[in-house]
């Protein structure tokens, strides 16, 4: 038994009342007043409470960016890694310890630009975990540069007059790559978002939730999002092609679970009882 297994075996677990407050660390978030991420944090703790998770058996993993600060604001085990690699780190956590609940959180730059390759492969691999992207179509922490979801004509110091490059469509990419649950949520609706997150966490395999989370500092016009969003007028489907057609033709403000697939999740845990280590040596006898 290694030291980890010993510590786990020895751990006593007093039953605690499970409320959203159970999942708050008490650390004051470093976000601008009015940032959508405050509400997302609240939705996460609500969802955890709804599912009666234990903080010590839940791991929140992130990369770098404003929204990626979120793990330290929860009372769960947190992992605040390097830029763009949250999904990789989270995959390692889940494969090593399948019994833990793993939530990955980050922004559009972290997830779709520097971490874009990991996004594709996390969807494909379909490991049972939930990925939320707080999308505000801007790099906020570095003070306002265009991200992959920024409109091509959005003017900024780094790209005067706009990038001229079309925006990335994360939901379609997720569907095409094999994510098993796809939803769009809005930070301004914390209760609705909490419901969607609970569904996403409960759903087997890789769940992806795109959360429109306004950056009131660098994209003040996103305050208008609260007027634009509306519940998706269709029910959730298990047909990825249908879901993809919907999200490619909607106005980008359809809120709700859009796709719940039935792909078999990535197999976790040992598939057979371990053999003694000395048995590995047999093949080296000449």
């Amino acid at each position, binding site marked *: 038994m290694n030291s980890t297994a010993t510590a786990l075996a020895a751990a006593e677990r007093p039953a605690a009342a499970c409320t959203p407050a159970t999942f708050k660390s008490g650390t004051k978030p470093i976000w601008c007043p009015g940032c959508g991420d405050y509400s997302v944090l609240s939705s996460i703790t609500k969802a955890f409470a709804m599912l009666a998770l234990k903080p*010590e058996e839940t791991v929140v993993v992130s990369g770098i960016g404003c929204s990626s600060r979120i793990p330290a604001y929860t009372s769960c085990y*947190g992992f605040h890694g390097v830029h763009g690699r949250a999904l*990789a*780190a989270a995959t*390692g*956590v889940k494969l090593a310890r399948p019994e833990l609940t793993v939530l990955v959180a980050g922004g559009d730059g972290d997830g779709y630009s520097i971490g874009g390759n990991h996004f594709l492969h996390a969807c494909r691999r379909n490991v049972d975990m939930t990925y939320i992207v707080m999308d505000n179509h801007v790099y906020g922490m570095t003070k306002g540069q265009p991200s992959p979801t920024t409109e091509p004509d959005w003017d900024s110091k780094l790209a005067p007059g706009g990038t001229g490059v079309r925006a990335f469509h994360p939901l379609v990419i997720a569907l095409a790559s094999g994510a098993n649950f796809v939803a769009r949520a809005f930070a301004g609706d914390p209760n609705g978002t909490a419901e969607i997150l609970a569904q996403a966490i409960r759903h087997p395999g890789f769940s992806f939730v795109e959360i429109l989370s306004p950056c009131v500092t660098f994209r003040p016009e996103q305050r208008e999002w609260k007027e634009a969003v509306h519940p998706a007028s269709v029910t959730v489907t298990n047909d990825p092609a249908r879901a993809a057609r919907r999200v490619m033709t909607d106005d980008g403000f359809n809120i709700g679970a859009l796709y719940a697939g039935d792909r078999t999740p990535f197999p976790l845990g040992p598939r057979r009882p371990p053999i003694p*280590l000395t048995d590995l040596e047999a093949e080296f006898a000449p």
Partner: protein
Amino acid sequence: MATTTSKSNASDPAHGGLSIALAGSGGSGVMTAGTLLLSAAAKAGAYGLMVRTSGPQIRGGEAAALLRIAREPVASLDDGFHLLLAFDWQNVHRFADEIPLTGTSLIVGDEGEGEAPAAFVATGARVAALPMKKMAKAIPGSWTNMVALGLAGTLAGLPREAIEAALRDSWKRDEASLAANLAAIDAGAKAAAGIGSIPKLPKLSPGDGRWLISGNEAAGLGAIRGGVRFVAAYPITPATELLEWMAPALAKVGGSLLQAEDELASINMIVGSSFAGVPSLTATAGPGLALMTEGIGLAVSAEVPLVVVDVMRGGPSTGIPAKSEQSDLSYAVSGLHGDAPRLVVAPTSIADCLATTQWAVHLAEALQAPAIVLSDQFMGQSRAIIDRPADLAFVGKRLVAEANAPDFKRYRDTPSGVSPMAVPGVPGTAYTADGLEKNEAGTPSSGARDHIVQLDKRARKLALHDYGDMWADIEGGGELAVLTFGSSTGPVREAIARAAANGVRAKLVAMRLIAPALPEKLDEALAGVKHVLVVEQNHGAQFYRYLRAWFDLPGRPESFHRPGPAAAQARRARRRDRRGGGPDFRRPRAPDRFRLKTR
């Protein structure tokens, strides 16, 4: 060509052993024949080594299996080859530097494949040809490389039973096809009589408890023995076989291996899995190590144990993927941004890949730090017959926080620098692992004081650890010491033995622990030493410069550094014999030699 009195030469294979090169185009069965020849030698009771070398295409280009078989354990290739047996000559001339021949060597080609390349013929070696392809064709279902195997094995004096046993052990096809290939082996063996002779192996008796293993396999086994149960990695030459060995082995012992989408993912996956409490490893080569450095830095900062095996190949950039070089040393010891103390260790032989990797897991877990293992293509892809390595007590054991530990601070500034690590699943010790600088509780902090406390802590835990005797292999004595590391150790050890035969004493210090630098340990090892020679296989004298930066070396240290891909050979690391009894395999390349000079 000088006549020789040296113990290790062509006319005395009992000491220097017997050296055979099999060459041809990739896919022609060169490596299979070489592997079977080595396996037959093992069954007959010999020790030996097979080095693989191939062109940049890896498959489809030129390939060679370089063997040295002997009565005693073998750690490096000899100065030259007794036999070059080529299945065809397609681009085989590219190995001219790696397959040195002399007038006593024998070259055998296929009659239907044209003349032997001038570069080989110019050595004065005897040249013969045999219609190997035709012979195989005459026995339906048989292959040319089996004719070659029969020929080479018989020339070497290996018993037919040993060759047959080697083939039977690896056979995966039907009996009829086995019989055909055994007939091909016999045809090759029969042809040996008329083709010219090479020295034969002495009478051998099978030894107990020997292993036939590659450095990559040994490293994988060492990792598992050390406690590694999760691996994430991306395929890369010459590290892939390590991963291919570990994938089924891990599954058997309750672990798993994941093929990641790239090296950025591999390293971050194992930071995650180790954070979650499972000892973890990745293996790569130079280009992959370059991609991984940000993640290794995260492991330094967040104090997450992990092991990265770097099977070094020729660099920079894509470099020479399938050939060996010790040129990632500088990058391993200093290639992270910020002040980032890390462990760097290097196995000193194929067998030692096991012990050193196991030790690396132990150190990483004990010190909650990343450890880089500097193997290389020579050790990783070579296969050797060795005595079963001793069992080591090094098992990864990390200091873990207890549930609800009072006043738990993940990064507490302890005297040893090591602080209890909380494991997800354990209540009352939740924290956020972070690449940001932090205070003792783990809360991000950009304050000067917190930065100094944490920098000191991370450096101190490596500096204060007791590394015991594992830090170096130290052998012999005298006023001259040869400092080396990794796969250069074998040739240096042999060079020192040859020098001893000529009355020159030298001490070997092969450093297994490269970083952190332990100047007191080396001072102790070099007590009484007046001259130091540093030997390594790279162009930039990286080890020499590292030693000059961190250690006080006696006298005026000399450097002997040569880049790959020519395999490190004792010839290159040997005293020039001033009495005229020169080495049998001397080649007109004096700059390739250094002198064990006593000033």
